[in-house]
């Protein structure tokens, strides 16, 4: 019967059919629209129409919306933390260097030994730019803060963790029982406890374990803790990649006369790593977010700097604005990386 009827508007538009086509969907759509109608106007009012974009704390307090003037005023502090004002260009240069390198790394054509070398060189350069030395006046790591700390910690720990992770993954697949046990215990212990516990071990316990008088910088300790943490998770990803390389590959390489080291370096590892690039990018996003935990041991990364900005006596209490701004920065970084990971997965599948 219905087949004889001319196609209605609903039959021609799949979107309309899915939203209002049946009683259930009509009800769902209504609920969603009512929720949107309730949530959106106050949100827009707070974010934009009632917000204060220019002015001071008094004009902000008078208005009912967000105080974006606060972000404008404290932007430098949120991005750089307690880094000395006069040396700010150095920190900006470090940020530009690291972000630029991420951009370069996103191009699969450039992957190779040179890029790896560029990474190590840039990290060292960023540390030099921030910390000083030579012609640059020294800035102690306690003064480092904001975005450079977030970037340096997450990228640096990843680079440091990489060789360790490959070693752990290989050890976990070793024929030698003792080596295998060693890797399993190390990986599972680190994965079984919260990052904060490792961070505390590095900040509270490790200094006690050094000979009297010796000391290691807090920043370095946090970076080391983060590297160990990343290495355990990365090792499991690399292990999955190693498992996916067919046995025939290493047998073929051996029959060509390659040594086991050459087989590993030239045949097995490249294929194993290529297979798990997307999970590695996802892990990197997670680690980028986890660097915020250094706030708990009193370091001023981007999030903690944003929080500290809201404790400025002149601009006290604008926590919501600080959090929304920090969330936006993290979202831009992480969302871009997640989308890139999706694209990359497709790109790597096509031969």
């Amino acid at each position, binding site marked *: 019967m219905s087949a004889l009827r001319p196609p209605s508007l609903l039959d021609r538009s799949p979107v309309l059919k899915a939203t209002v086509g049946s009683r259930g969907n009509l009800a769902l759509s209504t609920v*969603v629209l009512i929720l949107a109608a309730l949530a959106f106007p106050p949100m827009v009012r707070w974010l934009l129409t009632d917000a204060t974009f220019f002015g001071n704390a008094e004009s902000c307090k008078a208005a009912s919306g967000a105080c974006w003037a606060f972000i404008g005023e404290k932007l430098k502090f949120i991005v750089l933390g307690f880094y000395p004002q006069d040396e700010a260009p150095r920190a900006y240069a470090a940020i530009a260097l690291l972000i630029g390198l991420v951009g370069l790394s996103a191009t699969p054509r450039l992957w190779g030994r040179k890029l790896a070398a560029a990474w190590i060189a840039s990290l060292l350069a960023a540390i030099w730019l921030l910390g000083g030395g030579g012609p640059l006046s020294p800035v102690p790591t306690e003064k480092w803060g904001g975005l450079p700390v977030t970037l340096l910690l997450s990228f640096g720990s990843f680079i440091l963790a990489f060789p360790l992770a490959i070693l752990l993954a290989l050890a976990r697949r070793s024929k030698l029982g*003792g080596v295998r046990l060693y890797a399993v215990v190390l990986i599972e212990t680190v994965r079984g406890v919260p990052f904060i516990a490792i961070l505390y071990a590095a900040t*509270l*316990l490790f200094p006690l374990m050094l000979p009297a008088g010796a000391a290691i910088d807090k920043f370095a300790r946090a970076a080391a803790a983060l590297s160990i943490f990343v290495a355990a998770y990365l090792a499991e990803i690399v292990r999955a990649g190693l498992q996916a390389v067919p046995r025939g590959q290493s047998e073929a390489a051996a029959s060509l006369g390659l040594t086991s080291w050459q087989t590993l370096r030239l045949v097995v590892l490249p294929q194993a790593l290529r297979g798990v690039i997307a999970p590695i990018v996802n892990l990197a996003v997670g680690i980028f*977010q986890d660097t915020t935990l250094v706030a708990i041991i009193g370091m001023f990364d981007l999030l903690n700097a944003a929080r500290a900005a809201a404790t400025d006596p002149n601009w006290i209490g604008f926590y919501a604005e600080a959090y929304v701004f920090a969330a936006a920065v993290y979202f831009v970084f992480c969302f871009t990386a997640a989308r890139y990971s999706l694209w990359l997965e497709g790109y790597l599948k096509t031969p």
Partner: protein
Amino acid sequence: MNASAETEEPGRTRPGILTFVRLWLGGWPLAQIALYLGTLLAVFWLGRNLVANMARLGLTPGFAFLEHAANYEIGEGFIAYAAGDSYARAALVGLLNTIAVSALGCLLATVLGVTLGIARLSANPLVSRLVQAYVELLRNTPLLLQLFAWNTVIHLLPGPRQALSPLPGVLLSSRGLFLPAIDTGGHGATLAVAIVGAVLAMRLILKLRRHLAGPSPRRAVVLAYLAAVLLPVAIASGFGVAFTFDVPSLKGFNIRGGISMTPEFAALMLGLAVNASASIAETVRGGILAIPGGQWEAARSLGLRPFSVMRLVVLPQALRIILPVMTSSYLSLTKNSSLAVAIGFPDLVSILNTTANVTGQALEVIVLMLGAYLTLSLATSMVMNAYNRRHVLRGDRR
């Protein structure tokens, strides 16, 4: 155990202990011995420094300090604690707080996550897009930031006098979240024991019945459990124990009655649950998508309604894919509950950290911390694996 003996290849015997050791040691026993020796030396060196440093600070290594009196207060807990109780008791308060917030968080995250995961697959683009936005927002911002935001929001809520009441009996205010409770008049523990006992007895009866006369009908099972819960309550009321609903209400300057959650507990629990619900929703969505379309079609052609198709055919199969991933979501939620220290909720890490700062016994405290979380992780995995074997993979058992 019998099954493995049967499936073993014929003509192959298990290697003897010596062969096993030889295989385990592999080709380079010396290299392995060197590895362990090196580690041992490093541990010894670090340990010697530690003991020397502790002696310099006037500390003795060991867990004896746990018996000493702690001089700090703890904001909240499930067992009585006051400054002057031992450090061990303080740690126990923290452990219970961690377990409570994690367990409640997992429960809420599962309910939210499964609902959202199914909603994400809705043909209705308004619904699926809304869920997608929710998932993207939560996945691409740091958890710590989310917890800060929840904490701020809860403290921005109106005071007790103007408390919000989203549902009757539920009050939300800057003093925390208040839920109605059943007042058992001090007989809660006895009643709980009675109910558990009755449920176990009913299970036994049902099991015996099944042995005699095939599977019991669903209605009998439901009735039996209902009776098991209601009978002890009825008998207790018969003996004069009065049960009343304890609905939270404003008394004086604060809200009293019912079950209360402090703002910190509520912020942590909600933050963890909402954050985990995003990844659970993605897991559920992936698991459902992995079920071949033929299953849907076959179930529908049998005349099942969409809800029943989901409940009886698709979800049980999807659960096999979902459950292992869900387990790791629970594990990470439990570990993430340690972020409590950032918003001032006294969880295990927060209390142990205070203990370490007060006593200086960093090594012991870190060992306790690692031990507690490894045990919790192991326990969660074991429970989830047992559930997986018993309920999810039951079709595979022969």
